[in-house]
């Protein structure tokens, strides 16, 4: 445990080419499906596109949140794999492209974009100060500008440190992270309001921003856990990752699974208790027809399975279990977003077909490509970071 005991045993190896090929293959298949979906049923495709945007935002923004959180909290245990989170945060760069098709399908997605409807609807009329197309686009651009600015500044400093090893870059990033946090809280809330809540413009839930935040963090953490475990197992990562690191990742996953359930249940409980017609219809939509099974499935998929899968202490440090649970949680997050978005499209009847399948394939392909692309000319660990050694020596 002496501070000079561990020498960093890391030499950069290129990720296997098969990964890039796999990424391209998935991306290609996904893209073909997505494009043909837009030609065949552009309304349905637009809704799926919204899910895709939310999913990629979750991974990108959640990863950036963890990077900032590590700086801000002065955490050392996560320093060795901060780069993995930074790579995933690069997803933010492609978000504007993913969001572009939405702007051309606003009328299909958002009820409040129809002027004649708004004029005859008192509620929508009074909300139109916020819910109007131009302000919506301005907000969307503001989100992307804020996220990308912080992403570029934080990762640029982190990358510079690899070469210079300058410690002042860390303290610089701490300050930037402190500024980022309130922006993050506001943007994640307002993006949830814009992209999820405004699908049902009459409905409101003050907790929905936190709900989306919990899913965001969970998805980013699951993606990072999966990548870290795989990299360590295949020997691409720095030596010295021990079960204490795994345990911390598993415990965080477990904590946020519970946090999600807590928030999701709080939202349901309050609406169920108050029993106000302007709130309850949102849940009733999710209880009509076969949506009932989707809703029950959400509880099982998003809470019960990961809860019991990660409950015991050994399961939190078992790489095999972590890999499985990460994939499961990523799937659960997609399921959650489907549950949030799609009832507006298929009222009373949940649809799932090749269109719904194409978008996740595209998402996975994109994430693999982004990760491999970013890892080409960067180290997998922040070798210049002053906290790295302490991070590798981290023991519970």
């Amino acid at each position, binding site marked *: 445990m002496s501070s000079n005991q561990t020498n960093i045993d890391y030499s950069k190896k290129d990720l296997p080419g098969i990964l890039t090929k796999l990424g391209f293959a998935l991306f290609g298949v996904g893209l073909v499906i997505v494009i043909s979906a837009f030609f065949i049923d552009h309304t349905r495709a637009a809704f799926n596109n919204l899910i895709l945007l939310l999913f990629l935002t979750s991974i990108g923004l959640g990863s950036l949140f963890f990077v900032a959180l590590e700086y801000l909290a002065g955490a050392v245990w996560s320093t060795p794999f901060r780069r993995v989170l930074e790579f995933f945060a690069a997803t933010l760069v492609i978000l504007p492209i993913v969001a572009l098709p939405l702007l051309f399908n606003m009328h299909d997605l958002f009820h409040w974009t129809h002027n004649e409807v708004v004029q005859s609807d008192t509620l929508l009329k009074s909300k139109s100060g916020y819910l109007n197309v131009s302000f919506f686009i301005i907000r969307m651009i503001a989100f992307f500008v804020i996220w990308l600015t912080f992403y570029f500044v934080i990762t640029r400093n982190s990358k510079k440190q690899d070469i210079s090893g300058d410690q002042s870059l860390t303290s610089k990033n701490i300050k930037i992270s402190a500024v980022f946090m309130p922006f993050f809280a506001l943007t994640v809330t307002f993006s949830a309001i814009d992209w999820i809540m405004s699908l049902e413009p009459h409905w409101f839930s003050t907790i929905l921003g936190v709900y989306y935040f919990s899913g965001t963090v969970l998805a980013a953490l699951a993606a990072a856990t999966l990548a870290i475990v795989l990299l360590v197992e295949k020997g691409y990562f720095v030596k010295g990752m021990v079960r*204490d690191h795994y345990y911390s990742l598993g415990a965080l996953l477990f904590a946020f699974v519970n946090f999600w359930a807590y928030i999701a249940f709080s939202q349901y409980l309050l609406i169920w208790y108050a029993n106000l017609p302007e709130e309850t219809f949102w849940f009733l939509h999710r209880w009509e027809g076969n949506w009932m099974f989707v809703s029950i499935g959400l509880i099982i998929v998003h809470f019960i399975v990961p809860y019991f899968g990660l409950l015991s202490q050994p399961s939190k440090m078992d790489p095999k279990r972590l890999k499985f649970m990460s994939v499961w949680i990523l799937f659960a997050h997609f399921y959650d977003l489907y549950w949030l978005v799609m009832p507006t499209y298929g009222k009373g009847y949940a649809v799932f077909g090749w269109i719904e399948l194409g978008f996740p394939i595209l998402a996975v392909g994109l994430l693999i490509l982004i990760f491999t692309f970013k890892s080409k000319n960067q180290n997998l660990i922040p070798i210049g970071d002053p906290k790295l050694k302490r991070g590798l020596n981290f023991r519970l």
Partner: protein
Amino acid sequence: MSDKILYGYTGIFDTPDEIILAANKVAEDGYKKFDVNTPYPVHGMDNAMKLPVSKLGYAALIFGLTGTISAVTLMYFLSVFDYPIVIGGKPFFAFPAFVPIIFEVTVLAASIATVVTMIALFFKFPNISHPLHDTEYMKKVSSDKYGILLQADDLKFTEESAKELLAKLGAKDITAIYYDQAEISTEHKIFEPKFISLLIIIAVVVSGSTYFALNKLMFMVPFNWMMEQSKIIPQDNNSFFSDGKAMRTPIEGTVARGNMPYQFKGDPESAGKYLKNTLLPTEKNLDLGKKKYDIYCSPCHGYYGEGDSRLRGQFPNPPSLHSEKVRTWTDGRLYHVITEGQNIMPSYASQMTRKERWATILYLRVLQRSLNAKESDLE
């Protein structure tokens, strides 16, 4: 010294890194019963000491599940069987409303029971003394040093090897720790008079001060406005009115709502002419009529209206109700008889409500029809 019983050997280290290494070495040497004392939890110590995963988690799980089950059962029993109250239009078994309570009880049961288990089972609770108490070693390791203790009851333990091992590891202040003679007495501490009297004093002081605080110091007159209202109670005296009564009699000629007084007093012919039966001969009305007839009419008129009294001559038998005269009377005329009485038949106005009188007439018509059926009834 030889009459003392050896508890173990202790050694002191200066840094957390040293103590981790030492613990690791001792564990590798095969020692099972040894312990490390540090001023704060040292990260990685469990690993270095090669401790197995704590079993305390299972206690937490079991007690947590007990909490869950008892919360569900209690609330289910209370709000579904024992005292069901509709709250906010929700079902009796309002599961979402139960969830926060189930959660709280689960957490409470798990945490409290885990701490109690830890103290009772793992720390062997009533045993409040330990050979390490009041030693130089304990003073050091609870301020700024890191200590290791090799227990004498370990299978590998011999005084020489323990000393040697500690010295090899670079420990300072290697000392032997002996059981305190007073501590190894077999008597249970909890039965000592001193301890028991302390418990009694605590009980008296706590309950007395609680009683004083809650019932004397913080006493508030309970909410009793419902019992003591400034209003006039019926049947009470009241000096406000000249007759000294609280209750007022209604003004002459007052009629209770829906209860017009009988208009045809002493005028059976008008009653027969103007009164109409308010009921229809439905099954329900006929049932009511039969019930009332059997109660009030049948003792004299007989169950079938034939004048066959059950009173065995104690009261004169009335004539049959199947006579031409009675059959041709209108319902109103019959109603007048029931209401006012006739000859020696008293008034039944106080026994039967208006509706019951009309229903009874309907039933009487059925009885009459049974003995004087029409041709058309056969069809």
